[in-house]
Each structure stands twice: as C-alpha cells, then as structure tokens.
C-alpha cells in the first residue's frame, strides 16, 4: 500500500505555520471529560490555587467538536473504551491527547496476570502526545504537561524547567 504524501512537508508557509502553532499553543481548549480520580486533580488545576487559565487552557468545552486537547484523566475500563474512542474520533483536527496518570499511561495498579477489565494504557486506543506520570499527578504536573504540549507545538519552552533541589 502506498503511503499517503503529507503535503505539509512539501509546501511550507513558515511564518504562517509558526503563527498558527503559537495561536494553537496558547488556546488549548480541553474536553470536559474525566474518568476517575485524576479528574479531581484536573478540576483542581482549573481552580484558583493552580489556575490553568493563565495559559488560556481553562475553556473546558463540553462538545468534542470544539475541543482541541483530550485529557484522559483516569482508568479506562474495557467497557468504557468504545465511548472514549468515539469521543476521540468526534474531535476535529488538529487534536492532541494528554494521558494523565498511571492508569491512562499503562493501566497502573490494575495490571496483574489474568486481569480482564482494564485497557492497559490509552495508547492502545489512539495516539498520545504527552504522558503525565503520577497516581494521581499533582495539578502542577498537569500544567507541566500542558507546557510540554505547547513545547511540542511551537518548538519553544515557555518557562525554564524547574530543577528539583538536590
């Protein structure tokens, strides 16, 4: 089967592309969508203490048609997987996925020989852009994940990376 040609690799409108990437990075609207306890941390990130809105990402859109980034916050059961997949398919390009927490990354504590109920990582269903480890990750970690996604879009880091004290 012939691989489709990606036209964006042939024709480049450099300045326009940069501008669009910058705009998209500054207006990442997440989908209002939480699966488990990580969603509580996601809500805290929207609250006054951590305030995701500083980066223009507090507009949680309930409809997948208007959302740009899907924050998969929680365990995905096999029963839930088709619904999550549908939501991903209903989102319009360009779209990104953040896997938040150990369950969304790999199944987390629910992986053991013979388990039959949990999807082991959301990347079994669709491609993921940013992984945020933690059980659950703190709201700062989610903000760091959004900054990492912005870096992926624009190629530039917004703030210097904070090194933990030795």
């Amino acid at each position, binding site marked *: 089967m012939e691989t489709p040609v990606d036209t964006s690799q042939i024709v480049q409108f450099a300045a326009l592309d940069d501008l669009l990437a910058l705009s998209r990075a500054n207006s990442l609207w997440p989908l209002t969508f939480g699966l488990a306890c990580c969603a509580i941390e996601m809500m805290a990130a929207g609250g*006054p203490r951590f305030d995701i809105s500083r980066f*223009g990402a507090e507009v949680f859109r*309930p*409809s997948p048609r208007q959302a740009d980034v899907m924050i998969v916050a929680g365990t995905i059961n096999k029963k839930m997987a088709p619904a999550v997949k549908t939501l991903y398919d209903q989102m319009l390009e*360009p779209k990104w996925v953040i896997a938040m927490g150990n369950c969304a990354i790999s199944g987390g504590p629910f992986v053991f020989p013979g388990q039959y109920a949990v999807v082991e990582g959301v990347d079994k269903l669709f491609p993921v852009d940013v992984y945020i480890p933690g059980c659950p990750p703190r709201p700062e970690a989610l903000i760091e994940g959004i900054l990492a996604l912005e870096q992926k879009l624009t190629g530039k880091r917004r703030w210097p990376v904070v090194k933990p004290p030795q």
Partner: protein
Amino acid sequence: MSFLTAEPVRLLLALVCIMAFVGLNAAYLVLAERKGAGRFQRRPGPNEAGYGGWLQPVADVAKLLSKQLIVPPGTDTILFRLAPLMVISPAMMCLAVIPFSQTLVARNINVGLLMVFSFGSINVMAIMLSGWASRNKYAIISAARVVSQNVAYEIPMLLVVITLLMVTGTMDLNEIVRQQAGWFWHWNLFKVWVNPLMPVTFVIFFICMLAETNRAPFDMAEAESELVAGVFTEYAGMGFGVFFMAEYANIVLGCSLGTVLFLGGWQSPFGLWPGVVWFLLKLYALIFTVIWVRWTFPRTQFYNLLNLSWKILIPISLFTLLLSSAMIKLF
C-alpha cells in the same frame, strides 16, 4: 471630500464601523469575561499570551479559524451553514439605529425601537434552525428550550417597553434620549413622578435582556451539565465562533438599548465630556453587570425560569402598564 458625505458612502462607512465594533467587542469582551471570571474566583485569569493576556483573543480566533470544518452527515447542509449568519446579522442590523451620540448614528429612523425589536426576534428563530439543522438530540432539546424561554421573556420585555413608550410618546431612539436631558434624575430610570415603578421596569428589562441573550443564570441554550453543548453541539471552529460573537453582539445591543431607554443614552449629567464617552461608560457598566451576574449566580432550573416569567414578571409588568396609563390619564 464631498463624496464622503454622500448618503451611500456614509452608510457603507457606518456598516464597516459597526462590523468592526461588533468584532472587537466580541473578541475583547470574551477576554474581559475570562479575566472577570478569574477575578471573581480569586485567580489571575489568562495572563500569559501577550502582555497581561491581551493577545489571548487573537490566539483564540486564529485557532478557531484554522480548525477543521465539518458538516456532519445527515444534517441539513444549507441551514447548518446559514444559521450562524442568521444569528449575527440581525444584531449588527439593530446597531444601525442605536444613537452613540447626538450625531453618531448610522441611520436615524423614527421607528428605531420597533426595528430593534422586530430584528431582535429573528435571533430565536436562527437558534432554533441551528438546533434543527444539526440533527442532534441535544441540539433539538436545547432549541425547544430556547424557543419557550425567548417567547416567555419577550412578553414582559415588550410590556415594559410599551410602558416606557407611553411615557416618551415616540419610537425615535435619538428623541427618547433627548427627552432625558438634564441631571440624572431626568433619566427614565428615575422618572418616578411619571410612574413610581420606573426602577422596577428597568430591573424587569434587564432580567429579560439576560434571558433573551441566553446568558447565565438563564443559559438554557448551552446547558453544559445537561445537554452536551446545547444548540452548539455540532458546530466547530468558526461556526461556533460566530455563535459566540453573536452572543456578545446581542449583549452589546441589549445593554445599549437599556442605556438609551433608561439611563439617558449620551446625555451627560455634568456636560463635561462629549456624549459618546458617556454612552460608552454607561454601556460598559451595564455589560460589566451582565458578566458579574453570570459569575455570581448558578444556572436556574428550567421550570423556575418559566415560573419567573409567567408568574412574576408578566403580572408586574402588566401592573406597571396599567399604572402608568392611569397616571398619564389623571395628571
């Protein structure tokens, strides 16, 4: 320079100015709303894009414009595309008769108030069409809600405006403002010697304006917690952006109407600055109140919304109508 004063050229200029006014207001009122929401909830709000967040609307609009466009299968294609235009164009048309100052009005017609209300009622039909065309169950439920809500609130609004019309005796908006010359107690809001319930009529007008523009606490059109995103569920990218613009255009229109009818329009209490400054001051004070109300009150239940209109607002506005006609007849 004489061609600039020719009527068609002047109207074209006025049209461009109104479109720019609506566009800029929509973009920066969204920012004001998000910043305001931040301040009401004790957080900074968007402040990273540009200095203090001033480029946030630019980023949002560029992103919305570059988002994929789809018409979902099974929708009514023409109506689906047409509905956002039908929502925004009446609001822009109505702004043509709003007097920003004594001379700054696109077209001063002597039935301006009638025109505003007749075009303003197209809004509900356009939202209903968008819900119908989307072929989505949430959109249909939301469209039905919008229709019953708008019909319910059109009645007290019109009754209140009729009360005011009996006082002013004219539908010419510029003439209505001219009658309120003098100090602030000459504004229609405080004309208690004509009708002691004048402040009440303003409150009813403001509540109805909130409900007509589908703003919280009456945002039944886009009830996220119950209907995914209401009538906007299937709209993506700039189709949704136009609905958003239309919401803010309608707020600007409703608030400027409130300013003209009740708060003395471009009349200044001191004669200090030109009229347009006073008009914009009063307009943005009202718009700030709209934002304030949205982030202060939770959404009402739907039957409470209808009860408020049919059981409270309509009887009170009917009473004010009777009272002011009686007072006009007696004194």
